[in-house]
C-alpha cells in the first residue's frame, strides 16, 4: 500500500503512525516483520543563523506525482508491504515535523535500505523549495540540501 500526503497543517509523526497502524488490517501487521521510519524536523538554526520560520514552496501536481513514483519504485525494488510519505508545505516553525517516511517490509535490511533511499531521492527530486525567515528579519532561499 502506498500513501502520500502533502499538508499545510502541522502533525505529530508518531500519532500519525499510530493512527495509520490502526487502519491496517491485523493480518497485514503480522506479515510485516520490520518497519523503518524517518522524521525530519525543522531546526531553529542553519548556517550559523537563527531561523524563526520557514516557507515551503512546492509544485502542486508534480510534487505528489514525484513522491508517488518514488514510493512505487521502492515498493517494487525492495518488495515492501507499505510506504507512507507525509510532507509539510507552506509555513513551518522550529520543532515542526517537515517530513515523515515510513516503510514496512518482511525483513529489516529491506526496510532500512528502502527508507533511507526514499529520503535521498526525495531530497534530490521532489519539487520543494525552502525559504528561511531569519531572526534578523530577512528571508533567504536555501540553495541546496545537505548531503545524506
Amino acid at each position, binding site marked *: 500500500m502506498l500513501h502520500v500526503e502533502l499538508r499545510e497543517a502541522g502533525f505529530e509523526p508518531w500519532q500519525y503512525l499510530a493512527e495509520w497502524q490502526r487502519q491496517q488490517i491485523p493480518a497485514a501487521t503480522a506479515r510485516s516483520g520490520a518497519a523503518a521510519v524517518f522524521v525530519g524536523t525543522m531546526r531553529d538554526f542553519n548556517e550559523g543563523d537563527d531561523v524563526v520560520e520557514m516557507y515551503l514552496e512546492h*509544485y502542486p501536481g508534480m510534487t505528489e506525482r514525484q513522491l508517488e513514483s518514488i514510493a512505487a519504485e521502492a515498493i517494487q525494488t525492495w518488495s515492501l508491504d507499505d510506504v507512507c510519505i507525509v510532507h509539510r508545505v507552506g509555513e513551518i516553525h522550529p520543532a515542526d515535523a517537515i517530513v515523515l517516511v515510513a516503510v514496512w517490509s518482511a525483513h529489516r535490511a529491506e526496510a532500512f535500505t528502502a527508507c533511507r533511499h526514499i529520503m535521498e531521492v526525495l531530497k534530490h527530486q521532489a519539487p*520543494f*523549495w525552502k525559504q528561511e525567515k531569519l531572526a534578523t528579519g530577512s528571508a533567504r532561499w536555501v540553495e541546496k540540501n545537505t548531503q545524506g
Partner: protein
Amino acid sequence: MSVKVLFFASLRERLGRSEMLLDSNSALSVREVWEQGSGEASLPANVLVSVNHVYADAETSVKPGDEVAFFPPVTGG
C-alpha cells in the same frame, strides 16, 4: 494553442514572473521555451526543468498544450 510556463522559488523571484502562456502552433525545444519565457539567452546549468510533471532537459520537445516548469535545485525533506 499555447504552452503553459511556470517558474518557482528563487527563479520566480529573480525573473519576476510565476506563470505565463506562450503562444505556439509548432513544437519547440525546452531551450526555446526558456528563451522566449524568461527573456534570457541560455538555460543556466543549475535550472531544472519538467515537462508535464516529468523531469526534462534543454533538448526535450514541447508541444502545444504542454506544461513546462523551470526551477532551482530542490530543497525539501
